[in-house]
């Protein structure tokens, strides 16, 4: 089993290094095939490990002693248990699909090989993140995915700012930097959390840390929980660090699907789930409650922005934010296994949704404004089907135990909110379910139904390659059937994660609650159908209203950040550069250099090459030394 762990972990790295060999050369289809194959091998290994964990139990390997300094001993080990094997399987499955998809999507890109190198490197980092058996390894993976995310968002770094009708003008390199910097802010919190744990426990191994938790004081527990959650907030783009996620859509679409929907952004949720013994402590219950409240807030906050957005990928990005909010709500309320279940289910249908969007984007020559699409279902039948299925899954459609993946996972979260008597959260989450359905189908109808507005742009859409569509099918199937495995999954992961049971009361009225959610979801779809099925009719009055503008400008938060943080910071930087650095620091350094140079120039004359002159200098020095010694001696005598 140990070998399988290493295969699952290092196959992506091997692929990445292989593709990197051809990084600067022309497109070479072999890199795509090799990396995809290696990721698939990693997936197979993960799947075998999954069955192994299910039948036998967790696998814990210790590869080497990594850091040994004084009393500090951090081994580099990997833990494959119920949580990590779930993540591994999901990550490698989605990655495999995305890799194959990218073969088609990046077909015409001149940096084809580089792309696969980055993408596989990302998968490797993600595997390190989920498989590590200690917080430091997790942090390494955490930073690794951050770097890969930066590389991939800024993949088209040569692109200039393009002003668009709907979005603020940003370039990929700008978006990449924004994502990276925002994550750094949060990572500081994460590091502080790790330090706090190490300082008080003396180890970073999960098992040791969690075993030592009851001995720690309440203040330390709260500080560690808060600091770690700050890290999770950054990676999972929770308010107020959420703006990078939508801007990250500047990257290639497969990247958005893999990193900014299915895997990396869920790392924050993974962290909270992984650290569940910490967040379950009585002392930190209000931190957990805050997590749930923040998650709920982000759910509705992001959903509201998605209502009016016109950018195909940004709508999906907002929906990702919203679903991450759901996951945090579940995790914060103590239903860790439900959060993990929603994480997995969401990975499948959100990746599918993104890749479908990629197909549309590919067909529309890079155009993303859904107001300029419409009627695409005639030419893109399969993509329409996939995106429809994914949207249904996202909206959580289903009834009486039969339905799409989102029906099972999201419903369970909403039920948890009711069960915990947090009715405010419950109300918001139900409402958000309706909003989710509305914006999902607004997007589907505007893209695929109605009048064909793209003719005006002179675009001739075409369906994606056949093998790409076939490669998407596993995701589509999982988006439909994943929910049926809920009970089985619960049985599997609750061996490790705390069980969560609905109270008797909730259990009785569960069907009413479910029906209510479905009613909201169906209501949203119907509303979207009525408004957008027959085509786009723009309502000028609505678009000028305050609420609409507030939403379409993302609550003016990006502008607010720009005005209050970026601009003053830039001014401060310019001041530091112009005044402090150039006039003070540089001048000082230059002055020292000039002084030494002048001194050297002047004293160079001493070196005449004539021994007599040297002897004179020596005699003068000797005289000086004797004089100093004598005076010092006299003074010391006077002192006694």
């Amino acid at each position: 089993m140990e070998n399988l762990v290493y295969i699952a972990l290092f196959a992506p790295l091997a692929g990445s290094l292989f593709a990197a060999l051809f990084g600067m050369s022309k497109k070479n289809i072999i890199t795509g095939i090799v990396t995809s194959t290696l990721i698939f091998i990693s997936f197979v290994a993960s799947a075998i490990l999954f069955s192994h964990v299910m039948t036998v139990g967790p696998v814990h390997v210790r590869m080497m002693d990594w850091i040994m300094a004084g009393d500090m001993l951090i081994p580099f080990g990997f833990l494959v248990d119920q949580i990590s094997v779930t993540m591994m399987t999901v990550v490698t499955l989605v990655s495999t699909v995305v890799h194959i998809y990218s073969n088609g999507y990046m077909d015409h890109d001149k940096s084809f090989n580089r792309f696969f190198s980055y993408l596989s490197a990302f998968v490797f980092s993600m595997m390190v993140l989920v498989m590590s058996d200690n917080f430091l390894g997790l942090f390494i993976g955490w930073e690794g995915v951050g770097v890969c995310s930066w590389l991939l968002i800024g993949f088209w770094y040569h692109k200039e700012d393009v002003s668009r009708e709907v979005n603020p003008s940003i370039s990929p390199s700008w978006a990449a930097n924004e994502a990276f910097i925002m994550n750094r802010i949060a990572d500081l919190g994460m590091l502080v959390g790790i330090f706090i744990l190490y300082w008080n426990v003396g180890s970073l191994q999960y098992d040791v840390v969690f075993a030592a938790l009851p001995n720690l004081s309440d203040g330390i527990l709260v500080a560690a929980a808060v600091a770690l959650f700050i890290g999770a907030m950054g990676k999972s783009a929770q308010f107020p660090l959420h703006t990078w996620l939508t801007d990250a859509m500047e990257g290639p679409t497969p990247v958005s699907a893999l990193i900014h929907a299915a895997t990396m952004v869920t790392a924050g949720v993974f962290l909270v789930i992984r650290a569940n013994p910490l967040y379950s402590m009585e002392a930190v219950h209000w931190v957990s409650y805050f997590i749930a409240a923040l998650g709920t807030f982000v759910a509705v906050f992001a959903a509201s922005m998605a209502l009016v957005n016109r950018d195909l990928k940004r709508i999906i990005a907002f929906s990702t934010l919203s679903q991450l909010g759901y996951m945090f709500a579940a995790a914060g309320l103590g239903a860790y296994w439900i959060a993990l279940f929603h994480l997995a289910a969401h990975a499948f249908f959100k990746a599918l949704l993104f890749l479908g969007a990629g197909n549309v984007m590919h067909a529309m020559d890079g155009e993303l404004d859904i107001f300029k699409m419409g009627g695409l279902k005639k030419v893109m039948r399969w993509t329409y089907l996939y995106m429809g299925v994914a949207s249904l899954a996202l909206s959580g459609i289903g009834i009486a135990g039969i339905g799409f993946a989102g029906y099972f996972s999201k419903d369970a979260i909403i039920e948890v909110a009711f069960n915990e008597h947090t009715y405010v959260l419950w109300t918001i989450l139900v409402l958000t379910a309706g909003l989710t359905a509305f914006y999902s189908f607004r997007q589907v109808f505007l893209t695929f139904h109605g009048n064909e507005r793209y003719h005006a742009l002179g675009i001739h859409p075409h369906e994606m390659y056949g093998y790409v569509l076939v490669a998407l099918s596993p995701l589509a199937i999982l988006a439909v059937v994943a929910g049926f495995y809920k009970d089985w999954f619960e049985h599997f992961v609750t061996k490790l994660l705390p069980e969560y049971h609905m109270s008797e009361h909730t259990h009785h009225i569960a069907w009413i609650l479910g029906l209510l959610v479905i009613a909201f979801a169906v209501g949203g779809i119907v509303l979207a159908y009525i408004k957008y099925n027959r085509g786009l009719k723009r309502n000028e009055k609505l678009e000028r209203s305050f609420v609409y503008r507030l939403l379409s400008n993302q609550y003016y938060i990006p502008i607010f950040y720009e005005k209050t943080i970026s601009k003053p910071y830039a001014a401060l930087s310019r001041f530091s550069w112009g005044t402090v650095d150039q006039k003070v620091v540089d001048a000082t350094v230059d002055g020292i250099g000039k002084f030494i140079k002048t001194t050297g120039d002047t004293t160079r004359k001493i070196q005449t090459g004539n021994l007599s002159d040297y002897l004179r200098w020596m005699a003068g020095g000797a005289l000086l030394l004797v004089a100093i010694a004598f005076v010092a001696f006299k003074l010391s005598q006077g002192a006694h």
Partner: protein
Amino acid sequence: MIGLGHYLILSGILFSIGLVGVLRRKNLLMLFFATEIMLNAVNIAFAAISNHYHDMAGQMFAFFVIAVAASEVAVGLGLLVILYKKYGTLDLDAYTVMRG
């Protein structure tokens, strides 16, 4: 009465004469002579101090100084011969080859 101070002052004066010779002369041979003067000046001081304290250590040092002076002359004169072969003169000013 002649005390230790007299000898030390004589020693100091002789040392300064030697120093002036070292500083002033350009003939390398003369530099060697001046060095000998300085060494002898120091020997006088050693012998005087030895006498003053009735201690043999001063004389011992004077012996070793003489031994060092003899070695110095042997090696130094050898070097002088080579220098003379190379430059054809003993003038210090002629050796100015490392001007900065």
